[in-house]
């Protein structure tokens, strides 16, 4: 039964781009959740998202979970003295009144142990856990391998 639900979640084709639809929990708004298509399931997938904290208290993203991958983790790409490395991040700060982006070249979710290849045009759920606001499940759009972000009319506003 669980695998049927997973199959449905992974093959669900979005009628309109989910990435452009905001999700909310407490004072937080979560939008532009996207991932890149993968070739097969042997390489890790990626998870990018934007989180806006409209409240007056700092929060932090402390974990991600998804049925699409056995081992999703938060990472940060760090370039120090011309060397890029990708340390594990225990949490991503979401300060009061600010928008934080998990975006190419910075914080990102690394989806290790993909259950199946991520296909362009598909989508899958990711549950984000915040220190204060708690949990929220968002729908992640799978874009092309060459994508640099979702194409939303209001993106960047």
């Amino acid at each position, binding site marked *: 039964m669980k695998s049927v639900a997973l199959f449905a979640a992974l093959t669900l084709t979005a009628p309109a781009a989910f990435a452009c639809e905001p999700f909310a929990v407490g004072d937080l708004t979560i939008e532009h959740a996207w991932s*890149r*298509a993968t*070739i*097969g399931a*042997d*390489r*890790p*997938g*990626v998870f990018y998202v934007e989180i806006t904290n409209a409240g007056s208290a700092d929060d932090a993203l402390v974990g991600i979970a998804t049925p699409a991958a056995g*081992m999703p*983790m938060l*990472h940060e*790409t760090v*370039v120090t003295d*011309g*060397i*890029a*490395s*990708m340390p*594990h991040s225990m949490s991503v700060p979401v300060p009061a009144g600010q928008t934080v982006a998990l975006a*190419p*070249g910075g914080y*990102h979710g*690394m*989806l*290790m*142990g993909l259950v199946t290849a991520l296909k362009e045009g598909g989508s899958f759920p990711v549950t984000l856990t915040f220190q204060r606001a708690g949990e929220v499940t968002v729908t992640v759009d799978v874009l092309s*391998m*060459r*994508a*640099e972000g979702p194409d939303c009319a209001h993106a960047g506003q």
Partner: protein
Amino acid sequence: MRLTRLQKALWAAAGIAVLAYGALLWGPYRAPALVSEAPFRPTFSLPDDAGRLYSPADFAGKHLLVFFGFTNCPDVCPTTLSEVAQVIDDLGPDADKVQPLFISIDPERDRRLGLAAFTAAFHPAIIGLAGDADQTRAAADSFRIHFAREDDAAAPDGYTMSHSPALYLIGPEGDWLRQFTYGTPASEILADLKSRL
């Protein structure tokens, strides 16, 4: 007018600077100071997925856009290859004057996972090269770039790679021309290439 000790010292320093500059301009060391270094020509000898061995001579007459990376990398490498793909698309008819190369710094695993399919997913023009450990180290040393395997129990297969994430531009004669630091927008790379082609 009385000069303070500091003013005297400053005038003395200015005098020395003038003399030194004059010596640079007219002195016997003028030539070596102004002649540029010998061209820096990084090299490599690496096979593609099909086993065909490539070296810079195979691309003589073309500009090379070289990136060192690994296909298990979820963030930096796809982002850079996407930009390279965009640059090649935007070059239009000049695209055949630029050869993009992806050199694996994790060659054993990349060969196992399939390098050609990976690079082709970004752009069919990109050639992926993955040698053995010695060939890979020699290529990286030649380009003067860093890569290292870092054990990480939480990473796939228990390790990840740190590496120099820049793009390197090699001229049609094999001379190192410049690097584009990680995150340089495709439009900037395109403008630079167009000014050279």
